[in-house]
């Protein structure tokens, strides 16, 4: 049985934040869940996915975040408690739905989780999604710890039902990927079937209806503010006239700092967990009781600006600070020592910051960036495309997935990456305004997510580029989640269909389509040359299962390769052009770690001396 289905209230478990949140939702009776995978939210979905196979919970990996929110919106408007999860940038994709769903509302609880990523551990930006709550006029909750996250999810469902609006649940990587001891609560039965009651004057957002809905939304926002004033998730602790206002993990750093600075009776903390709309009265009362206030929040000065406005309304002139060059930054994530030092300096508390560790004499270390795995099919395609384009000036727009890593040496493939699905769209632009050839890359999951729209645009507007679809039969980067092109029978899962990429590409009107095996370098190069010669949109579908995924399915059959020292002339084409991490140097000569090599035979095709052969043949 899945561990999160353990029906033993009161028992303690050591859970990852994402597991605790999933458990909290189960304890809230969630019955419908949907997502598009995105780190740092991925394990939350993985747990729902696994639990849905052992219970009456519904779960789906949707094609993108917008669709994911659409399916959840329908379920929550049919009386079924629903949850939709995504990473922070995913909410940009779903924003179109979000802004109007805020008007329409829900009939059963809908919690939308946005996992923000300060410091960009695995993201292209560090946007602060608290602004989406403000933008959409929706309540937002932000836990400060793993334990609290589990409890808060339940309250978020209750709040959503009280207001009949979706509630945004904002985490940051340090909540999602922290682990702590959590106490299990009751697991209630789920309501999995609902009823949709037609209410066109609420559910059909034509202008005449929406004008009324906006009025109601603002009235509900006032109600929400009253609730925030009295929410147990907004509380004051400690005593003294030095004030701190904090949210999320910053609150935990502040609590530790108060203890370290031995300032328990000097510092009071206002923690905001129900953080939009902000509790104006609570904040004004807090400010009135303080001589100085420090606002501690990662990301943007979201609370700080509001707090300063409240002070102005209340005629309060105490010093309020947060993000300034001498205190906190809008960049990256905070850490306990930084928070402690800023608190000590702002409040004038005597404190010796620990001296920085003396790193003198440490030699320069070789970098260890993430790389494409040994036997990754993307490496082969990049190599073939690069070879086929030799001597030509080509622009390579790329997209979001493992293959983004192809921009690094030695492959160096990937010139422009902005967001999911943008490679084909940007290819349209590059090919229109420059005289260069354009070859864009997109993964299979990303193709279905939103790459297809750019391709259709290219066909319709008659642009001139080649799109290489790196079809590795899974969503690899986030941990092998399925997408519409995946064969679910391999996972012993029924009731799914497979959408054939080639048929889709042909159906939208692409006139030049080639399908190749990713590890066949010669055929892939031929396909690239032919495609480049074609005027208009051409597509190459390069198929080969992700090596790690194939391994987990026990489908890896390749035998490891080895360098024949007799034949090797040490020109290092294998190392310099491919960068397969299975290679190492022994006395200056290339060698292959047999335990890493999966036997894809790419290096054997690249070696001009035919010196790389299956290990057993040596």
């Amino acid at each position, binding site marked *: 049985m899945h561990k999160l289905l353990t029906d033993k209230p009161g028992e303690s478990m050591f859970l990852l934040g994402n597991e605790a949140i999933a458990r909290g939702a189960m304890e809230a009776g969630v019955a419908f869940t949907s997502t598009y995978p995105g780190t740092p939210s991925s394990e939350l979905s993985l747990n729902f996915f696994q639990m849905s196979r052992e219970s009456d919970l519904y779960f789906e990996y949707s094609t993108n975040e917008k669709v994911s929110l659409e399916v959840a919106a329908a379920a929550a408007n049919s009386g079924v408690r629903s949850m939709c999860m995504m990473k922070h940038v995913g909410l940009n994709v779903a924003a179109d739905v979000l802004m109007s769903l805020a008007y329409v509302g829900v009939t059963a609880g809908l919690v939308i989780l946005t996992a923000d990523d300060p410091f960009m551990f695995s993201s292209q930006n560090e946007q602060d999604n608290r602004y989406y709550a403000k933008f959409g006029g929706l309540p937002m909750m932000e836990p400060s710890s793993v334990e609290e996250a589990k409890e808060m999810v339940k309250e978020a469902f209750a709040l959503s039902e009280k207001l009949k609006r979706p509630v945004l649940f904002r985490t940051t990587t340090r909540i999602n990927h922290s*682990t702590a001891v959590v106490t299990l609560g009751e697991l209630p039965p789920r309501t999995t079937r609902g009823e949709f009651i037609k209410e066109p004057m609420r559910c059909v957002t034509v202008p005449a209806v929406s004008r009324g809905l906006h009025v109601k939304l603002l009235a509900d926002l006032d109600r929400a503010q009253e609730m925030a004033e009295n929410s147990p998730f907004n509380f004051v602790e400690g005593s003294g006239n030095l004030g701190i206002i904090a949210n999320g993990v910053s609150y*935990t750093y502040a609590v530790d700092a108060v203890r370290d600075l031995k300032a328990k009776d000097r510092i009071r903390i206002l923690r905001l967990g129900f953080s939009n709309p902000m509790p104006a009265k609570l904040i004004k009362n807090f400010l009135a009781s303080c001589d100085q206030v420090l606002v501690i929040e990662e990301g943007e000065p979201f609370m700080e600006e509001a707090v300063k406005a409240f002070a102005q309304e209340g005629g309060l002139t105490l010093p309020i600070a947060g993000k300034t060059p001498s205190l906190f930054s809008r960049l990256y994530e905070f850490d306990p020592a930084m928070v402690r030092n800023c608190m000590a300096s702002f409040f004038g508390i005597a404190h010796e910051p620990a001296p920085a560790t003396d790193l003198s004499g440490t030699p320069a*270390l070789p970098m*260890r960036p993430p790389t494409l795995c040994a036997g990754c099919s993307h490496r082969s395609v990049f190599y073939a495309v690069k070879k086929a384009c030799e001597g030509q000036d080509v622009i390579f727009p790329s997209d979001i997935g493992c293959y983004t890593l192809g921009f690094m040496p030695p492959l160096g493939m990937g010139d422009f990456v902005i967001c999911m699905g943008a490679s084909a769209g940007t290819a349209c632009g590059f090919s229109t305004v420059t005289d260069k050839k354009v070859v864009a890359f997109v993964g299979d999951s990303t193709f279905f997510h939103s790459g297809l729209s750019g391709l259709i645009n290219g066909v319709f507007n008659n642009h001139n580029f080649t799109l290489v679809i790196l079809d590795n039969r899974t969503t690899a980067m986030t941990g092998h989640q399925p997408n519409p092109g995946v064969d679910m029978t391999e996972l012993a899962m029924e009731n799914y269909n497979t959408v054939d990429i080639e048929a889709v590409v042909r159906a939208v009107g692409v006139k030049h389509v080639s399908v190749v095996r990713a590890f066949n370098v010669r055929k892939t190069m031929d396909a690239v040359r032919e495609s480049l010669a074609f005027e208009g949109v051409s597509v190459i579908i390069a198929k080969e299962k992700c090596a790690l995924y194939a391994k987990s399915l026990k489908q890896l059959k390749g035998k490891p390769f080895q360098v024949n020292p007799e034949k090797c002339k040490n020109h290092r084409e294998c190392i310099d052009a491919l960068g397969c991490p299975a290679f190492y140097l022994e006395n200056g000569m290339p060698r292959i770690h047999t335990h890493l090599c999966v036997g894809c035979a790419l290096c054997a095709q690249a070696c001009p001396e035919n010196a790389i052969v299956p290990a057993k043949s040596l």
Partner: protein
Amino acid sequence: MEPKRLIIVAVGGQGNLLASHVLGEAALMSGIPVRMSEIHGMAQRGGVVESALVFGEARSTIISDGEADLFVSFEPCEALRALKKCNPRTVAITNTRPLPPFTAVIGRGTYPDISEVTTILRDKTGRLIAFDATALAEEAGNSMCLNMVLLGTLIATGVLPITAEAVREAIRTRTKASFVDMNILAFEKGFAQAT
């Protein structure tokens, strides 16, 4: 309990997250407050993986530079890279078996000399235990047991109030059944290193 802070660094695939989880479970069984934070995502494609464990009365799950009481590295060059987490009182443990990053193989950077690595670590920390932990894992039956070897050494330092028996119990209940005996053997071998 006064907080005790532990940093574990490794290269993706070396099993440090499992070791951290086993330790966390052992703390849970022993009634010791524990919180942990780990870095996922891009790091899994052969990059550096770091986990931070905070035991005792603290709310934060991450550890600032210079604030680790205990430091464990699965790879010597990664030990040096994370040295800023240590201070002159830190108890440090490192595997001495190198796993050169691919950048060093393609000539972008040089892998440091192991004796230089251990000399610097010894100079800048309170106590250093450095040995070829991979060799002990191989002796136990599989180089994948490296994480259990280092866990054994960590417990033997006595810095954490967690008993070897609690960890053995966590290994028995939290690691793959077919690996339990090998993991326990690896744990004992590591334990013997520090004593």
